[in-house]
């Protein structure tokens, strides 16, 4: 109960932030005030206030269910608020809309985000609500509009740049790597780049090689950026809000096939921690690390594994850069076996880096080599059966766990 009251109190304290008039905007933009207001994660049992430093939260409330579909699993058990049900793209839209209302400096730019409503409907109706200056339809020039977003961010605006498909952002690689990631460092801290670059990526349904790219493996070396991958409506909204509020450039990876996932999310405002991994299913026998769409393949495999008598611990790492080595390490300490399931290609993917990080840091806790299941190192073929063989399937996960645990 006290958590809810605290939540209500914080909500009123937040109200000044919702109305930012243009004068205040002009005055504050140059001086870049540090945002002091706190916000409460509305979960029962966890009543901590988060200053903009976003400290790592020790999760006390673990989700017991394999798949977070029930309201009583996700939201508080003492709360009388049932929350509301929505699809993942609507959750992203809600998060974006709330942040745009809260801070007038947040703007969206991308192809077909305005009048068209977004190619995946994430920005639907936002142009009608906020106008053409805040929801900008750009011409097809990823290099230029990503660079523009970064330039605007240098002055204090908080743009959300959408790549219609993450693969198109390869054209903006120079801007993302050199300007977005490095300007805070090369200017000696003078400029911050509070930009969010988001878009759908990953292997879809027969979209072809060029539209099935996993850019997290290409961007992971860029110093200065943070990368997160959302996988449920709950964390999609939370990560979107956190990414917009972060002073660092954040790349938010969505997945083409996850936009229509349905879940019940809380009505109260909440923000997820950008650098934290999510414990999907606690267990004892093996730690399965995954993110984005592969989470669902893993959970499907988990059902089979549970029937076979295994107890896998499933962690959705969420934060691709930097890794949440705290959560991961504690899990490794407990289970002594690690399986990584990812959609990146085997060479130079997130899994490869994660394998290296776990081997270096937690070698003493491991009873078996780290196993990494990734997509094949091939351009994604068009034919459906071939495409299926490119990515990791639940059956392969089951086999891998069986081999690991015997």
């Amino acid at each position, binding site marked *: 109960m006290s958590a809810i009251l605290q939540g209500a109190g914080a909500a009123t304290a937040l109200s000044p932030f919702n109305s930012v008039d*243009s004068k205040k*905007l*002009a005055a504050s*933009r140059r001086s870049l005030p540090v945002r002091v207001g706190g916000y409460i994660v509305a979960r029962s049992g966890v009543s901590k206030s988060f200053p*903009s*430093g*976003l*400290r*790592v939260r020790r999760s006390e409330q673990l989700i017991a269910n394999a798949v977070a579909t029930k309201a009583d699993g996700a939201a508080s058990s003492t709360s009388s608020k049932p929350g509301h049900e929505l699809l993942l793209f609507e959750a992203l839209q809600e998060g974006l809309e709330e942040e745009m209302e809260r801070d007038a400096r947040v*703007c969206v730019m991308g192809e077909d985000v305005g009048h068209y409503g977004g190619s995946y409907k994430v920005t639907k109706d936002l142009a009608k609500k906020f106008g053409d*200056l805040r929801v*900008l339809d*750009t*011409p097809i*020039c990823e*290099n*230029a*509009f990503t*660079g*523009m977003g*970064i*330039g*605007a*961010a*240098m*002055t204090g*605006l908080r743009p959300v740049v959408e790549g219609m498909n993450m693969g198109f952002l390869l054209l903006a690689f*120079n*801007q993302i790597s*050199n*300007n977005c990631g490095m*300007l*805070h*460092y*090369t*200017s*000696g*801290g*003078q*400029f*911050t780049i509070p930009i969010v670059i988001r878009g759908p990526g990953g292997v879809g349904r027969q979209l072809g090689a060029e539209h099935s790219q996993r850019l997290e493996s290409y961007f992971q070396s860029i*110093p*200065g950026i*943070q990368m997160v991958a959302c996988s449920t409506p709950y964390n999609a909204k939370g990560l979107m809000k956190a990414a917009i509020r*972060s*002073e*660092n450039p954040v790349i938010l990876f969505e997945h083409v096939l996850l936009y229509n996932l349905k879940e019940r999310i809380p009505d109260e405002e909440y923000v997820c*921690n950008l*650098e*934290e991994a999510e414990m999907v299913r606690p267990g004892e026998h093996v730690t399965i690390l995954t993110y984005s769409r592969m989470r669902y393949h893993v959970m499907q495999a988990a059902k089979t594994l549970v029937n076979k008598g295994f107890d896998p611990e499933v962690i959705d790492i969420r934060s691709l850069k*930097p*890794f*949440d*080595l*705290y959560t991961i*390490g*504690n899990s490794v*300490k407990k289970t002594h076996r690690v399986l990584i399931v990812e959609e990146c290609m085997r060479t130079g993917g997130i899994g490869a880096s994660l394998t290296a990080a776990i081997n*270096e*840091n937690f070698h003493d806790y491991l009873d078996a080599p780290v196993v990494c299941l990734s997509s094949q190192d091939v351009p994604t073929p068009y034919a459906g059966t071939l495409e299926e063989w490119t990515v990791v399937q639940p059956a392969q996960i089951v086999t891998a766990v069986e081999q690991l645990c015997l």
Partner: protein
Amino acid sequence: MALSRLSSRSNGLLRSAAAAVLLRRTISTDTSPMTIDISLPFTAHLVEPPSRAVETSPKELLSFYRDMVVMRRMEIAADSLYKAKLIRGFCHLYDGQEAVAIGMEAAITKQDAIITSYRDHCTFLGRGGSLVEAFSELMGRKAGCSNGKGGSMHFYKKDAGFYGGHGIVGAQIPLGCGLAFAQKYSKDEAVTFTLYGDGAANQGQLFEALNIAALWDLPAILVCENNHYGMGTAEWRAAKSPAYFKRGDYVPGLKVDGMDVLAVKQACKFAKEHALKNGPIVLEMDTYRYHGHSMSDPGSTYRTRDEISGVRQERDPIERVRKLIVSHDFATEKELKDIEKEVRKEVDAAIAEAKESPVPDQSELFTNIYVKGLGTESFGADRKELRASLP
């Protein structure tokens, strides 16, 4: 216009005939406005060019002279420091092009933003940066404007609206349009000057940015500093059409004699007014660099020494202002020489102070990567230190 010039000149002569040196010193702080006609007319594309009569004052002319001498001296000093191996890596020098930086500053305020490429030392000074900060940054010391972590190509001065300092050719153009967008978004009534070179003028992102800027009416002024060489390639070998001011096509353009500080001032003033009302405009500054592309380039393999010395004799921006000042008797040759000596001392003192500045601490390696501390820590290059530790 010519008459007024003659009359001010004859006044000067009368004054000089009657007065002693003391009286001339008071003229050097004279802020009374005067008009000077620039020698070369503007060439315009899709717009009416501004008038050739430029408003200025004796004080301003002397400040032009002094500031350009400081810039010239700084670049020459940087040359020596590079040869002495105190400056490493890349060092792109701006000597010869000072009029662009100074003329631009004279027409704008610090609310307006400037963003440029890697040839940024003098632009930084023009925006109010100090010599000590510049030299320290070049030598990689703590007192540098980027704490020694940026280097020659990454000078920034946020409080004065100087957004750098960018190493990749042309990448600053979309950034500049972003700055202009932010100015429009926040209703700043300010403009952004995005500088790039004739080499960068062939980049696709320039045209992408021009399209967006024209489409959304951004207060962006794209300034092509045409020094006629893209590193070692002359412009006629790199560009089918060397009329860079016309490349905007539907965006108006103006070609300016970039070695004439007054012409630059007039053009930038005009451009600012235009951009605030009508959206983007392209300025082409016809200028020249005496040094090679960078310190690794002698600068004489793709152009003759005669050409370089010819430009130095006929078009040098500092010489032009000197002649103007002397002919109007705002100062004597000796006084100008004294200014040069004083500047030389100032630059030497700044170098000495910069040499005293310490190199950044090892801990600075990991600062300013992210804005806030994270739950985990960054790893050192050998991955043996600074690991995440479990309780």
